[in-house]
């Protein structure tokens, strides 16, 4: 009997990251239990799943930090953890990984030394990420957003093929988060980016593919466009209150209607109009990614 086919992302080549029946965890326990997928096309692959699903463990295993207890992970055919694989990866942990006791420029030189990058790159990256004014500040004096920016800066010190970004925008204000998303979007034109997030709207905004994990297994892997919500919820905002909407559930200013699908929207709008409801705005309220968490 042959090996069952892996869920495949589009495109193949030396960039191919392949997990086959991957089992990994901590101190003998299984967090990932038979994860299989393969991808190689440059894009952002959003890794989603509830807490404990195995997102961070998957990233750590691909980064070569955790040794699989079963199955395999290869990059271009070379097992991860091998130096030839590790030097093709960038890894940004969900904790910032910032060494205490250093100033910003010293920390970036520390990262450059670890990666084997030139010191010249430090100046360029500080300018690119707008942290030049902070260069002489101690890291302990920085805000959470500034620290995250320094943390993210290290993946721009050197070009690599695969970027593993574990919740790079968590706990950040919207402005900094948007800046980081823009940087990542720029990367994904030529690189494979695995990006984990708990923010489903962010995931939908930047991701082209979704890799969903549930209880240590892949529950969905494919283009975001292929995801269809099991529930289609339409929000209606009106120009003025109407008795015809009494009893309709609300979220903020929106009255919520659960419909079979988008094709039912025109009929609903006609019905509301016939009842004298003046519709100001209609918008889809659900996010199909939410279903991956249920």
């Amino acid at each position, binding site marked *: 009997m042959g090996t069952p086919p892996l869920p495949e992302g589009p495109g193949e080549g030396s960039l191919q990251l392949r997990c086959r029946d991957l089992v990994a965890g901590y101190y003998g326990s299984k967090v990932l239990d038979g994860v299989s997928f393969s991808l190689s096309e440059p894009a952002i692959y959003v890794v989603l799943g509830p807490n404990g699903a195995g997102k961070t463990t998957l990233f750590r295993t691909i*980064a070569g930090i955790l040794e699989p207890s079963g199955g395999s992970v290869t990059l271009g055919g070379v097992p991860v953890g091998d130096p030839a694989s590790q030097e093709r990866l960038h890894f940004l942990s969900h904790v910032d990984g910032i060494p205490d006791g250093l100033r910003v420029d010293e920390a970036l030189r520390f990262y450059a030394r670890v990666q084997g990058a030139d010191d010249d790159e430090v100046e360029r990256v500080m300018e690119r990420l707008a942290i030049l004014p902070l260069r002489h500040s101690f890291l302990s004096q920085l805000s959470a957003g500034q620290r995250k920016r320094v943390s993210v800066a290290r993946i721009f*010190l050197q070009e690599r093929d695969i970027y593993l970004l574990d919740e790079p925008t968590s706990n950040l204000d919207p402005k900094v988060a948007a800046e980081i998303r823009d940087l990542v979007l720029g990367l994904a034109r030529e690189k494979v980016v695995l990006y984990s997030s708990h923010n489903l709207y962010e995931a939908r905004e930047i991701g082209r593919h979704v890799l969903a994990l549930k209880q240590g297994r892949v529950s969905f892997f494919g283009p975001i466009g292929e995801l269809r919500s099991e529930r289609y919820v339409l929000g209606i905002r009106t120009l003025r209150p109407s008795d015809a909407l009494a009893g309709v559930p609300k979220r903020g200013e929106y009255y919520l209607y659960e419909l079979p699908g988008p094709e039912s929207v025109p009929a609903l709008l006609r019905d509301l109009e016939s009842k004298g409801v003046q519709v100001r705005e209609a918008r889809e309220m659900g996010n199909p990614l939410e279903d991956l968490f249920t």
Partner: protein
Amino acid sequence: MALARRGAPPGSLLPITLRRSFVAGRIYLAMGSAFSLLLAVALARARPIVFATTFPLEMPLFAVLGSLGGLIIFSGDRAKGVFEYLLAYGVRPTTIFGNGVLAALGLAATVLAVALAAGLGTYFASGGTPTADLAKSIGLYAVPMSLAGTVFSTTAGMYWASLSSPRSGFNSPLGVAPLLGVGPTVLVLVTAETAPAADFYWITVGAAAILGAAALTLVAASGRLLRSERLLSPL
């Protein structure tokens, strides 16, 4: 944006680890140095035999205290994900461990240097003369016991840190490690004080040898005990 391709292999992280340990442990470094200065002044006018059997016996206490910066950096780096980052870029767990121990030794050596300069300087300035007892106390006990105590407490503290979640107080490696490090020294102090004078060198040199062997055993076991997963952030 154009990014640089991979260049030179990773350089040594020891100099920066050492520097960070000095910054993080500066208070303990200052305390260790200050206590040695105070003791040197207190013993300045003591008889040579009293100085030779008192000052060197207490030096390991100051050295272990002053070396805590190495453990502070280790504990903090693990919790904050710095090790996770290093491991992902090919730095081996044994290198991380070795850098921590060497940084602690650097701090201990600094305190030792201050203590020796202060102690011997004050002793000679007060009219003391070089004696064989003093040379033996320093060469056969104070220096090896200080270094062995530092390696022992730092290594044990690292194991403790890698097995536990970050906590403060006596549950934290920073609470336990100094006790492990100064415990043998205190034991030697008490034993040497109550034992016959003829046994003084057996006790001190024997204690330094036993602690040194224990420290080397812990270091030798580091490759097996400190696996990558123990260095990951528990956060």
